[in-house]
């Protein structure tokens, strides 16, 4: 036994030396060669709400959709690049009114049938039909299918941002006529073209996915399956991670990130912005001078450095900067602090020190901490502030009714186009503050008819300039999205839009 062990150590040492001399450490070689097999356990922070992307609103649903549904295009984790998906190529005509996709000959649904242009046309009817997200596709006038592998989107206006939408899981390709099933049956267990298929589901508890043998990428996915566990409690997610029951925790809370250990978390600047929303429709803050004074009183750099555990950056625009086409305006100096100017504006507005409420959700994210940090800064400028911590449910109701004065709130862009955030801004009455939405509507229309990226950026900038002049929606911090990833998981890159495709993830031995 002793000899065998000694020999094993000696051989190991020799291999180590030779590999180091060759410039490739053994452990690196072992760790960097993807291997097939294994099941990944991923924690979801809440339950999924539907298998139908047009009806689902929970981020958790989309985190699972990206594993199950195939899309025409795919986006890189940083959201900057588009690559082939079920379509191997795309092209615009000269007028940019026809967007043509050539489907990959390998594109196949999980039941073994080929993905055809008829399936894409049928899928479009779902996206633009009874959907919560029909606005994403408003520039598509019709879809033509000249042959089974070619699909042409006829556009009412050139819309360069459409490609990013078509790369999101919302634009899932499903078989024509639901593959012969009723819609109700189909959405219980959909036929799909993503890297994984649904194996089993216990609603609100677990979702088991297994490898799709017909996946269009040869040799992928590496994993045999994914087990999603719904764990709403932050402490429980941490404990299960520490016990080795969970490999990846999606959306780690800023306050809990340090407990996972120094090397356990991966983060990336996300499409989530922490805002101070100021009521512009009624009450003392309807005076823009007071809203501007509030912005100038905030020590933005101190807030970002101390309020978010180092997991944020100073926000420079309302539309998150990670969104392709988002640009801040030249005069938008959201990070400026000028206490004297703030005091002057407060005096000029005739503010008499009546108490103002600053609300924040008591049960989610770093908003309450940010509100507590902002309170003394506003008071230094002469405001009288009461903090109100309210459950998200209560706060959402109050926002809907316009029953607030100031609120600290996180808002996320779900798709990689400025039109997503702008659409949300418009539908929420300029994020509930009752500010005039005319400029946001104009920017949205301009973006959805832009034929080049420059026009998208110009429209974004025009909206940002209006937002800066209005001072009702004050971007405080652009937040990181944090993931806890166990050491045995390889190939993970933190995504910008909270979703990632796990076809290239693998588990080391």
């Amino acid at each position, binding site marked *: 036994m002793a000899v065998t062990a000694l020999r094993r150590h000696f051989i190991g040492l020799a291999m180590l030396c030779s590999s180091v001399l060759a410039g490739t450490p053994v452990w690196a070689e072992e760790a960097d060669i993807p291997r097939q097999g294994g099941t990944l356990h991923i924690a979801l922070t809440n*339950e999924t*709400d*539907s298998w139908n992307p047009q009806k689902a*609103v929970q981020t958790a649903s989309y985190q699972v959709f990206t594993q199950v549904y195939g899309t025409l295009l795919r986006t890189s984790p940083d959201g900057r690049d588009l690559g082939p998906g079920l379509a191997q190529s795309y092209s615009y005509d000269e007028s940019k009114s026809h967007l043509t996709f050539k489907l990959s000959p390998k594109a196949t649904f999980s039941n073994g049938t080929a993905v055809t242009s008829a399936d894409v046309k049928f899928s479009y009817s779902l996206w633009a039909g009874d959907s*919560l*997200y029909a606005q994403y596709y408003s520039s598509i006038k019709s879809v033509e299918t000249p042959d089974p592998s070619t699909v042409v989107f006829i556009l009412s206006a050139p819309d360069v941002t459409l490609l990013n939408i078509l790369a999101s899981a919302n634009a899932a390709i499903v078989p024509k006529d639901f593959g012969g099933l009723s819609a109700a049956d189909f959405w219980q267990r959909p036929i799909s073209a993503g890297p994984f298929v649904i194996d089993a589901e*216990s*609603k*609100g*508890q677990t979702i088991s996915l297994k490898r799709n043998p017909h996946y269009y990428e040869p040799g992928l996915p590496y994993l045999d399956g994914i087990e999603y*566990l*719904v*764990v*709403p*409690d932050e*402490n*429980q997610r941490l*404990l*299960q991670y*520490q*016990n080795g*029951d969970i490999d990846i925790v999606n959306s780690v809370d800023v306050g809990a990130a340090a407990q996972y250990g120094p090397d356990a978390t991966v983060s990336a600047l996300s499409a989530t912005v922490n805002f101070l929303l100021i009521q512009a429709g009624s009450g003392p803050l309807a005076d823009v001078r007071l809203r501007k004074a509030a912005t100038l009183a905030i020590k933005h750099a101190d807030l970002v450095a101390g309020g978010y555990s180092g997991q944020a950056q100073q926000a420079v625009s309302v539309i998150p900067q990670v969104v392709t086409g988002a640009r801040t305006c030249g005069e938008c100096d959201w990070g400026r602090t000028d206490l004297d100017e703030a005091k002057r504006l407060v005096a000029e507005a005739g503010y008499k020190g009546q108490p103002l409420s600053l609300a924040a959700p008591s049960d989610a994210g770093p908003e309450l901490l940010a509100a507590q940090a902002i309170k003394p800064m506003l008071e230094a400028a002469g405001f009288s502030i009461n903090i109100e911590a309210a459950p998200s*449910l*209560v706060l*959402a*109701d*109050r926002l*809907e009714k316009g029953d607030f004065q100031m609120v600290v709130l996180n808002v996320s862009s779900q798709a990689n186009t400025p039109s997503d955030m702008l*659409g*949300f801004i418009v*539908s*929420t009455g300029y994020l509930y503050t009752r500010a005039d939405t005319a400029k946001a509507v104009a920017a949205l229309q301009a973006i959805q008819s832009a034929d080049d990226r420059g026009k998208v950026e110009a429209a974004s900038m025009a909206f940002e300039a209006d937002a800066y002049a209005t001072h009702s929606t004050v971007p405080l911090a652009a937040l990181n999205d944090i993931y806890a990833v166990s050491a045995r998981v390889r190939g993970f890159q933190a995504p910008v839009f909270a979703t990632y495709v796990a076809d290239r993830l693998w588990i080391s031995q």
Partner: protein
Amino acid sequence: MGFKAGNRSDHLAWRLGGWLAQLAFSILILVLIVFVLTQVAPGDAARLRLGPRASQEEVDVLRKQLGLDQNILVQFGSYVGRLARADLGTSINGEPVSEVIRQRIDKTWWLLVGTSVFSLALSFPLAWLSAYYRDRAIDHVIRFAVLVALFMPVFWIGFLLIRFLALPTGWFPVAGLGSSPMELLRSLVLPCLTGAIAMAPILVRSLRSSLIEVISADYVTVARSLGIRGSALLFRHILRNALGPTIALFSLNVGYLFFGIVILETTFAIHGLGSQLVTASIKKDVNVVQAITIIFAAGVVLANSCGDLVVRWLDPRQGSR
């Protein structure tokens, strides 16, 4: 004899009828309270389901589908009518509530049974030791431990057990319930122990007092003088007379446990009815909240009635009072 038997069956029928009436009345009151509470709570279930990005028209359509556009009295009447036909309705996600219950009730059941068994298994020896060694060191240690446990929050006990028992040893899972019988048993240990530690202090204190009273009673002295010792003395003369108040207290605690299960399930990430009650309350999923509340209410009434029956069986004099 015939006359007596008739009396007894009449008595039983009367008691059963009374019990059912009590159950029906409790459930009706609870349904009304939960219904009113969910109506006055802030938020709109349709808006919560569809999210802030949905248009008002989409929200209105869903409100109509869910019947939320009707007047509150009509909604309540329609709910009670459906309930009378054993129709629990659908959740706001469109899933039948009966299915939501079916997928989770077994986990809650195992947790209830396990916690009850653990709490009895913990309470009896501790109470006996404490009473038997009254005012000696072991009694003081037990009474102090019981006092500490009495003031510890349930979730904190669970957290400590996970942190200092499950994680270092790996003997027990930190979350969920296992599927095979052995895994199920292993996964029940920590949540049930947590529940038992929370329940036991009151039982230990009650049983200890009763035992001390009975042990020093004249009839126990007489029994001893007649040579009755060991298990015959313990079970026939001491426990039988001391158990009454503890059983009543135990059944009351099992009643509390039905709603305390919410904390146990949340602490140990067990997807049972308790954790579902929390999720449904957040989503204002009225039908699910109502159904789970009814089940728990029925459980409370049943636990109290069973406790009552056992007390009467142990001491028939209770029935004639």
